[in-house]
């Protein structure tokens, strides 16, 4: 490191290094400030009982047990629906359409527009479409489906980038070997596109798990333990919002819930990377 710095000590190089390091320092400092704030207020409240008991007295007392279950179910529905659709669309856009085909461009543009739809509009739309038109009511299913619509653009665009980054040589060699496009896709392109897919998953889950406005109108506010996917279930982020903005005296548990959410996310991200490294990547060797 140091050696490299010395070797390139001309002015522009130094400036670039300074810029990069200060950008990183700024981001890290902001993050530490934010996370430090949460940890500072939250740590003393997190106990096993907090994690396993349902909330009492509008959330000021009791825990978040039932809310954790609802959150997991909502996230599960969201990923179960959005990953197959997202992956399929990304494959189509990256591998089966040309840059100037009308279908590809239209789909891509409509996804870009979708990525900017405000979360509250997703909420109102989800309420009208999933809860009323499809008759799912306030339920974990409605919430998960609404979130799936919301994370699709992120998932698709980043996976698509993953596919685009695979060198054309791979495809040409596969074609020369007489492999069908399906085989090429499953055994060659998919493993190579894993980093992109992973980023999409991380960003998508981050957005889904942090969502408030879209869920309050779809999965709802009920903090009871859900008995099926058709029950209404309060997500962690709604719980945090309600405690910090609507319930006087809910701040302490709001902080604790926020910390739980961050840790949960850390665990999910870790698992996703681990899976990607140990399972999907192995396929590239086993053709």
């Amino acid at each position, binding site marked *: 490191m140091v050696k490299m710095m010395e070797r390139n000590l001309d002015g522009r190089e130094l400036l670039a290094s300074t810029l990069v390091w200060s950008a990183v320092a700024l981001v890290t400092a902001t993050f530490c400030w934010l996370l430090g704030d949460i940890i500072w207020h939250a740590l003393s409240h997190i106990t096993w009982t907090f994690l396993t008991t349902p909330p009492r*007295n*509008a*959330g000021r007392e009791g825990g978040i047990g039932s809310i954790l279950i609802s959150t997991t179910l909502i996230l599960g529905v969201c990923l179960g*629906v959005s990953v*197959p659709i997202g992956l399929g669309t990304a494959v189509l856009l990256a591998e089966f359409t040309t840059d100037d085909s009308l279908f590809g461009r239209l789909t891509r543009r409509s996804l870009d527009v979708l990525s900017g739809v405000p979360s509250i509009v997703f909420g109102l739309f989800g309420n009208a479409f999933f809860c*009323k038109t*499809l*008759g*799912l*009511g*306030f339920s974990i*299913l409605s919430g998960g489906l609404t979130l799936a619509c919301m994370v699709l653009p992120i998932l698709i665009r980043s996976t698509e980038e993953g596919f685009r980054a695979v060198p054309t040589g791979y495809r040409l060699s596969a074609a020369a070997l007489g492999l069908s496009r399906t085989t090429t896709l499953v055994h060659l392109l998919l493993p190579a596109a894993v980093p992109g897919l992973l980023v999409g998953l991380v960003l998508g889950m981050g957005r889904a798990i942090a969502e408030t406005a879209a869920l*309050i*109108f779809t999965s*709802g*506010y*009920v*903090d*009871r333990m859900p008995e099926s*996917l*058709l029950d*209404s279930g309060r997500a962690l982020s709604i719980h945090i919002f*309600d405690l*910090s*903005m*609507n*319930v*006087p*005296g809910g701040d302490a548990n709001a902080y604790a819930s926020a910390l739980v959410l961050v840790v949960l996310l850390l665990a999910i991200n870790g698992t996703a990377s681990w899976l990607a490294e140990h399972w999907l990547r192995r396929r590239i060797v086993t053709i």
Partner: protein
Amino acid sequence: MSTCRALFMLKKYAPLVALSMAVLMYIPASVEAQSAAADQLTGKLVITGASTLAPLIAEIGKRFESLYPTVRIDVQSGGSSRGVADARQGLSDIGMVSRAMKEDERDLSAFPVARDGVCPILHRENPVQALTDEQIVAIYTGKITNWKAVGGVDAPITVVNKADGRSTLEVFLQHFKLKSSDIKAQVVIGDNEQGVKTVAGNRNAIGYVSIGTAEYDAVRGVPIKLLPVGGVAASTENVQKGVFPLSRPLHIVTRTSPAGLAKAFIEFAQSKAVYDLIRQQYFVPLAD
């Protein structure tokens, strides 16, 4: 070709399709359960509306569920207008409305469950102890813009107002005989806690919030103070006595006159058995 695609979809999402079919079967079942509720109080009540009321009604619902174990009370938050709209369209059994009923809402049966006061708040360090109604009007209409003019320090006033349509805003406008467009605000907020946090973070701010919220926070060391209105101290006690001039009723509403489970729940929510819950959520019971 499109049917072909639809078939693929069907296969791919067979579990989902099965689920939605389950839903279709599930709806009539719940309707049945409700009509049967008249005799033995079982079934499910869906209550939607004002976010202010949601925590209270959810707690009342939990107590009701513990009395009648086969009953499910689902409370959904989302605003007074949603409470009215959902009750009207029959999307919910009961709506929650955190304000007085309007002229064009006569078609609904409304039941008050509690009261809530609204009072001006300042930062604790602000030397101003009281403001007359005229001074408050002048501050909110931008005629007074410096604390010096009302006996405070020489600093510009930050006027914190509520967003259009919020019931606390309506109570405030009505009492001070103002129009929403007369108000010149520097900050516009949504929920009460946001108002408290905004004023707590700005020494020169003035805002108005629900008395219950303000009282709770002030007692627990948040640096705000509650201003009297018309010489009456702002406290839940004075709201209960009926002497505090700014207050609003909190309603639950139904489309038709309630029967069965809904009737039982409304009676329960208006009974003395829930007064402790009302106080616990920092609202004021209707009578003692």
